[in-house]
């Protein structure tokens, strides 16, 4: 009975340590290889396609928002006359 308990303890310990290893492995060297590749891509796009998508989204929202802000300013500068 005691031997079974000891075996159970070892199994759970092994399972837990494998699980945490799966979640947080040291992938820094892979990242270093990716970002040090001599391809001339600037750092804000060097991670891949998702970088470009996020950049385009940010720029579109920002520029669009700026146009909208200037439009609102123009509207606010010429108030409608009340009769």
């Amino acid at each position, binding site marked *: 009975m005691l031997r079974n308990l000891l075996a159970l303890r070892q199994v759970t310990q092994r399972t837990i340590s494998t699980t945490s290893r799966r979640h*947080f492995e*040291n*992938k*820094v060297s892979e*990242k*270093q290889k*990716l*970002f*040090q590749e*001599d391809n001339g891509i*600037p*750092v*804000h796009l*060097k*991670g891949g396609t998702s970088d470009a998508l*996020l*950049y385009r*989204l*940010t*720029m579109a*929202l*920002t*520029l*669009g*928002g*700026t146009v*909208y*802000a200037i439009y*609102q*300013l123009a509207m*606010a500068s010429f108030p409608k006359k009340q009769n």
Partner: protein
Amino acid sequence: MTHQTHAYHMVNPSPWPLTGALSALLLTSGLAMWFHYNTLTLLYLGLLTNMLTMYQWWRDIVREGTYQGHHTPIVQKGLRYGMILFIVSEVFFFAGFFWAFYHSSLVPTHDLGGCWPPTGIIPLNPLEVPLLNTSVLLASGVSITWAHHSLMEGKRNNMNQALLITIGLGVYFTALQASEYLETSFSISDGIYGSTFFMATGFHGLHVIIGSTFLMVCLLRQLKYHFTSKHHFGFEAAAWYWHFVDVVWLFLYVSIYWWGS
């Protein structure tokens, strides 16, 4: 293929200063639109573009330092100077609110009743939740120091735990302070007492949230093995910021909660 022959960091051209500046335009014009025309679109756009800029800008800095190795000792020195100067600027920011508080509370005007707290104001008891908040932040100062020493000694598990505890205490402070805000018998529009109380403690609370977020980013980076026992400036910057937030609270507690009650 040309390589640099110096130890400094010549950054790649980046769009984030532009998007950051434009997001500031959207935030400010968004506030004006909200105040005067009761519409939130511009403000939301400003907040979103601001968050996107911050995420991508700091993501790039992590890439430049941890993945590309650009943070040489001299570059790190510059980053240290930068963080110190930023915190000094924040000290001056809070100095303004403390100036306003002392200006009004040291010589209370006739319309307040010539006393502080002003007539009709029931201040919070400094020995209740505010004292607990003080102990929470002081304890978080201890736990973050434990985290730092664990990191320097290569004790990974200890560091993870201590940093998690620090973040937990920060979140606990925010929750307690939020509940206190609901408990006050006075609001921000209750004269100069309300104004000075909520502006000073409100901006402090915002800085606790910012500091907690910075620490959470550090925890994520620590779990991903970004920090070494010798090189972990991101964590040190977060720790300095956290200690600053703690010190501001101590001044707030002594001045506004204790002396001012």
